[in-house]
């Protein structure tokens, strides 16, 4: 009997040694969050990704699983972000005729909007006395996760704080786009999608696909171009400004 109890204690570490537990917990949190999201009436202020992250964090804390152990197992999921990013090329192509019709405003807006997206947050945080590490973690907040991590490798900062900023930015951007588009009288799915992608990266793009396929394609484009532009300019800009 005591032997069985001993083995029972080894159960969690053993299961954590395989990716199965990490992937299982992630999926449980995901499906629970979808159910709750539907029950709440699909509110924009509380998207599934936020619910899922909170539930997953609660599960990990409840089971006393170290975040680093979890992350190792969940690498199986994180790896798929690469092919999933490539996959966004398909809606981009399928909606290309819409994009070509708007190429001029797109080319003018994205560099300006991507610059101010980083700048506003940096100026506010800097004025309130945030440290250089915090500033570096906040700067790529509007960029999609795989690119943001690439930028982080160049400019430094905390990866976890960066990922949290990405979550907050994506959720807030989805919410603010909904409010401000109505307030400004913008009802064009193309512009709403573009704004979601530029400001809210992949989370905004998930929201855009909920609105329509056109919004999703424009969001993918906005996300991609904002990512490319920010990755090229941010390291250079921060070095010049003396932040890093």
């Amino acid at each position, binding site marked *: 009997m005591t032997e069985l109890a001993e083995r029972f204690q080894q159960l969690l570490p053993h299961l954590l040694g395989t990716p199965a537990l990490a992937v299982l917990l992630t999926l449980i949190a995901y499906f629970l969050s979808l159910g709750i999201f539907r029950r709440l009436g699909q509110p924009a202020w509380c998207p599934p990704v936020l619910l899922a992250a909170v539930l997953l964090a609660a599960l990990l804390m409840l089971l006393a699983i170290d975040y680093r152990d979890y992350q190792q197992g969940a690498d199986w999921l994180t790896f798929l972000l690469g*092919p999933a990013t490539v996959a966004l090329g398909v809606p981009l192509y399928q909606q290309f005729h819409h994009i070509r019709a708007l190429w001029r405003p797109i080319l003018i807006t994205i560099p300006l909007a991507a610059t101010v997206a980083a700048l506003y947050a940096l100026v506010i945080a800097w004025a309130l006395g945030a440290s250089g590490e915090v500033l570096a973690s906040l700067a790529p907040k509007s960029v999609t996760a795989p690119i943001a991590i690439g930028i982080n490798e160049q400019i430094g900062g905390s990866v976890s704080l960066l990922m949290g900023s990405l979550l907050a930015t994506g959720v807030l951007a989805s919410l603010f786009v909904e409010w401000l588009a109505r307030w400004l009288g913008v009802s064009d799915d193309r512009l709403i999608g573009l704004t979601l992608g530029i400001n809210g990266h992949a989370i905004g793009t998930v929201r855009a696909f909920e609105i329509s396929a056109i919004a999703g394609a424009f969001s993918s484009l906005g996300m991609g171009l904002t990512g490319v532009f920010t990755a090229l300019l941010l390291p250079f800009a921060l070095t010049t400004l003396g932040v890093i």
Partner: protein
Amino acid sequence: MPLLRGFLTLLLFLMLGEALRLLFQWPVSGGIIGMLLLSLWAMLSGGVRDDVALASQKLIAILIVLLMPGVVGVFFLGNRFDGQWPAIALALVGGTFLSVLSTLALLRLQLPDSSKARSHD
């Protein structure tokens, strides 16, 4: 096996993107280079094969699951940034509000009658 064949194509473009990133030292991730190459390839070859469209649709549908492992890290930061949370929160909320407002205003300035144009579709 169309799903796997489509996935194979996506992986090939990802590898190509990664290779270009390394060879030319581009600061952009291989996934984004692969995404741009895939849409360029579709334009040049006149379309996306059904298997690639299928695999891409399936992956995009589970994007949230793929983001979760990284995102959940914010709940495990501990006390490392104590005292800076008001600055962080205000920068995120205020910064995002202002940048969404700027983007929408900028787009509306360039396409003043866009809301009307759409409603006739």
